[in-house]
């Protein structure tokens, strides 16, 4: 059943948190009053100019925004060399890796932490996969003197050690999660278990556009700064809007932040890139490509699961993409056909990681390396005046050990 094509792709969700049939509020009763309270406070904050002013100030002076829109000249040349018939788009990077803490995650975290302060919450919990959201949350909590507890799958604690160390330095308590597959979804389960237990003083700072309503919309709104800046910067650089956008997808927050402001410019091609792991016919983390609709972590969306509705473990070389679900708005954008969802394997991401480092002097995180892998291919098929923006969602320092392992040591 294909959903109706709406007049605007930017009006969702409805008041019950639905994007088409996706989203919603599938949580235990204990949490329901809390997410309703959060929704009320968020709606009020959104309308309060003082909230926006405070967030803008932090984004400028603490995060270092706006992040540059950078013409990746040598990567563009590389794509043009591979292209036939004189093709090859102009590739720009949206440099989210230059943000304080090294990824887009801080945009959302500061919004949520300011909200937590308004709500009088003193204890912040978060889940993290790659550790970038955990680091961003620990950072904001340090800045504002808030208690911070980060749930992280024990497997991820192992493969993202530098970020665990950073969180510790920032004064956060990192709790290794030993249940389930010990990765991001289990960290999210454990954070939810904490939240049902500590309902009075605790704010759950979710790191992506997933979870029960209002999180998918709220996190998206906080990340939309990426797309809004891109619009202004591209107009300044080229005098017109981009022709295509491309971003990697874990839960989908960096992608949604770039895409959302452009959804109603229908001429713009938009690509999301999921993690194909060992390959889509093997273990992977591409929920849209390999999953089906189901209900997990408070929302209906595409999930990797078996025939009986048991959630399956994803696999990706990138801990930040290793999640068996995806934000509900992406599920809806897929079904409406507005966004095209592709995937890239571990090996393709590793190759793009190295390519970007060597050609541009930028070591990307493994997550955006997935987007880069598809970007170079797509660029090679586009005309030379095609303007493409790749969201460089994070820097790769955290991944050096993982990459070294895969490349056979340094």
């Amino acid at each position, binding site marked *: 059943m294909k959903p109706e094509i709406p007049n605007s792709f930017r009006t969702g969700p409805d008041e019950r948190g639905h994007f088409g049939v996706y989203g919603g509020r*599938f949580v235990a009763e204990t949490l329901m009053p809390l997410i309703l309270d959060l929704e009320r406070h968020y709606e009020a904050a959104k309308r309060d100019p003082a909230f926006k002013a405070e967030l803008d100030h932090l984004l400028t002076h603490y995060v270092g925004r706006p992040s540059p829109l950078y013409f990746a000249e040598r990567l563009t040349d590389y794509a043009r060399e591979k292209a036939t018939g004189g093709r090859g788009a102009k590739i720009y990077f949206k440099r989210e890796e230059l943000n304080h803490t090294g990824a887009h995650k801080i945009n959302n975290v500061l919004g949520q932490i300011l909200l937590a302060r308004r709500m009088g919450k003193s204890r912040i919990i978060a889940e993290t996969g790659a550790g970038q959201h955990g680091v961003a949350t620990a950072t904001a909590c340090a800045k504002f003197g808030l208690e911070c507890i980060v749930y992280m799958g024990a497997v991820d604690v192992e493969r993202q050690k530098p970020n665990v160390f950073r969180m510790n330095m920032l004064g956060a308590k990192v709790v290794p999660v030993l249940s389930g597959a010990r990765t991001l979804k289990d960290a999210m389960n454990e954070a939810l278990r904490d939240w049902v237990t500590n*309902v009075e003083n605790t704010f759950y700072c979710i790191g992506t556009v997933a979870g029960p309503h209002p999180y998918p919309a709220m996190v998206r709104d906080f990340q939309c700064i990426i797309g809004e800046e891109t619009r202004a910067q591209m107009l300044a650089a080229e005098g017109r809007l981009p022709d295509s956008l491309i971003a990697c997808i874990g839960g989908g927050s960096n992608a949604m932040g770039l895409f959302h402001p452009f959804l109603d410019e229908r001429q713009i091609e938009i690509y999301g890139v999921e993690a194909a792991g060992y390959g889509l016919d093997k273990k992977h983390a591409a929920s849209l490509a390999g999953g089906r609709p*189901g209900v997990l972590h408070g929302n209906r969306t595409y999930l990797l699961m078996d025939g009986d*509705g048991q959630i399956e473990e994803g696999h990706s070389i990138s801990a930040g993409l290793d999640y068996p679900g995806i934000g509900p708005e992406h599920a809806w954008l897929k079904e409406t056909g507005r966004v095209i969802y592709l995937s890239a394997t571990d090996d393709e991401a590793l190759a793009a990681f190295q390519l970007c480092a060597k050609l541009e002097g930028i070591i990307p995180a493994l997550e955006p390396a997935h987007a880069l892998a598809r970007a170079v291919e797509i660029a090679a098929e586009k005309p030379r005046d095609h303007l493409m923006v790749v969201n460089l969602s994070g820097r790769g320092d955290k991944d050096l050990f993982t990459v070294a392992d895969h490349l056979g040591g340094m």
Partner: protein
Amino acid sequence: MRRIETRFAELARARRAALVTFVMAGDPDLETSLAILKALPAAGADVIELGMPFTDPMADGPAIQAAGLRALHAGTTLAKTLALAADFRAHDRTTPLVLMGYYNPIYVHGVRQFLAEAKKAGVDGVIVVDLPPEEDSELCIPAREAGLAFIRLATPTTDAARLPAVLAHTSGFLYYVSITGITGAGAPDVAKVTAAVARLKQHTDLPVAVGFGVKNAASAAAIASIADGVVVGSALVEAIRKSLDEAGRPTPGSVAAVTGLVRELAAGVHAAARGFARTGQSA
């Protein structure tokens, strides 16, 4: 047949609370699980909650998480859980049987199909943790149309403004979660629970069962004196776990490990003096 209503009415006449026992379907395997189910009523269980295992039980503590994983490793599926329910029902025609779990396996199975099969298997009601009143159109309304009770959880965070919505489509009984927290966590504060149950009773004629954190005969007795039912789960699945051999297989003592504890709990519940005037129930 309205087994839940009948059972609570009988117990109201006997002036005692119901002992509601939770075990996970297929834990530690389907055969042992059936043997446990069949033995529960004689040991003193008045109502049985049968867990539908799920990989990601967000409201459950370590004990029930582990029970779910044991069941899944033993090959339990929703279809097998329903078959288990049917086998139990063939053996016991009166003990109310309620399926408890999370929405995704039901959603994937197909809501209508699940409800029809559950009804046919002799299931009396369902408790689905991650379906608050806001999502009633998903399963709650269809369940009631299919003739199954939809038993809702009320919690310490359910305030006066929300309570009408929580009660609106609830049937069978109301399950009061005694603590903010996950299953198997801290012990309930009986004074607080007493006040909470009294508040609920002002708004509903349904029996109120209280669970989360009841572990032994003493705490069961304390709750039984102030509520219409006492739910025990984590303690029972822990008894199963402790009875297993090193490879996680059941031992000859596994069934008795559960029934032994149920007998103790039942003794506690039976000994409890009912401390409040019953409201609204047909006695």
